[in-house]
């Protein structure tokens, strides 16, 4: 087993840690701009959100080849199963990545505040489409997910240490 493969689940845990950290930063940006009515692009601040994608298993030549081999049918328990069909075809996924930081297309909030410098002629101000409560809940979820990934890294560390004691 190659040395980098021993620590594969540490790497997977690390992808989770960094994805959750990015998510946390995006939430922090949303909270900081919850009342921002004017941005360089014009208009109020639009809520940002992270788009997460899983990293698929490495596709090996072996796997592709095996997929294209015509499988022999085993209709009886006594039939011989070729060895290549016993091996697992799918590998393990390699964690998660932030595919994109998207903008929330939902409409802005309209708040009546005639004294506000950004108010329109009717006295309404367009406020960011951010709900502070939702951001706080998201923040707790991100924190919890971060801790879970940290636990994965911790467990892997202990396992590697145990293996070195042999």
């Amino acid at each position: 087993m190659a040395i980098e493969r021993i620590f594969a689940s540490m790497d997977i845990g690390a992808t989770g840690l960094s994805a959750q950290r990015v998510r946390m930063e995006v939430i922090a940006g949303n909270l900081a701009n919850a009342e921002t009515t004017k941005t360089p692009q014009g208009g109020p601040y639009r809520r940002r959100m992270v788009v997460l994608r899983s990293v698929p298993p490495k596709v090996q030549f072996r796997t592709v080849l095996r997929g294209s081999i015509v499988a022999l049918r085993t209709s009886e328990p006594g039939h011989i199963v070729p060895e290549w069909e016993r091996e697992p075809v799918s590998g393990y996924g390699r964690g998660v990545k932030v595919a994109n930081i998207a903008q929330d297309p939902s409409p802005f909030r309209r708040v009546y505040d005639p004294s506000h410098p950004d108010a329109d002629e009717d006295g309404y101000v367009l406020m960011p489409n951010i709900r502070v409560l939702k951001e706080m809940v998201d923040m707790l979820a991100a924190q919890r997910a971060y801790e879970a990934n940290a636990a994965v890294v911790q467990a892997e560390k202990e396992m590697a240490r145990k293996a070195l004691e042999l």
Partner: protein
Amino acid sequence: MLDMEGTSIPLLSKALDAYVVRQRVIADNIANSETPGFRRKEVRFEEELRKALGKKICGRRTDPRHLPVGKPGVKEVRPKIVSTDDPQVPNGVNNVDMEREMVQLTKNYLKYISAMEVLRRRLRDLKLSVEGRGGM
């Protein structure tokens, strides 16, 4: 050469390999706990091993080109990674249940640590029998 076939060492290393694969799969499930559309995976190993241990007749393979006859032996048992179609859990984005994954992670970690400890003792005993109790 020292014959390890009859000892528990090949079985232990088989199990350790499977636990390492399972650890990765659980790590992947946890990393993707918030990924929309992700399907959790799990590793099937113990039941396959049990089947192989309870086998009756198995053709011995003395050459890698031989076809396996009968049920797979312990040597042929490999951890299987399967996607599961569990119903979605209330997080609404996928079927990863964080509590369940954390319990699986802990269980798998303890299995790995115990197997590693047994292996360590076996190797220590082996070393003792090879080297003797010292004094030379």
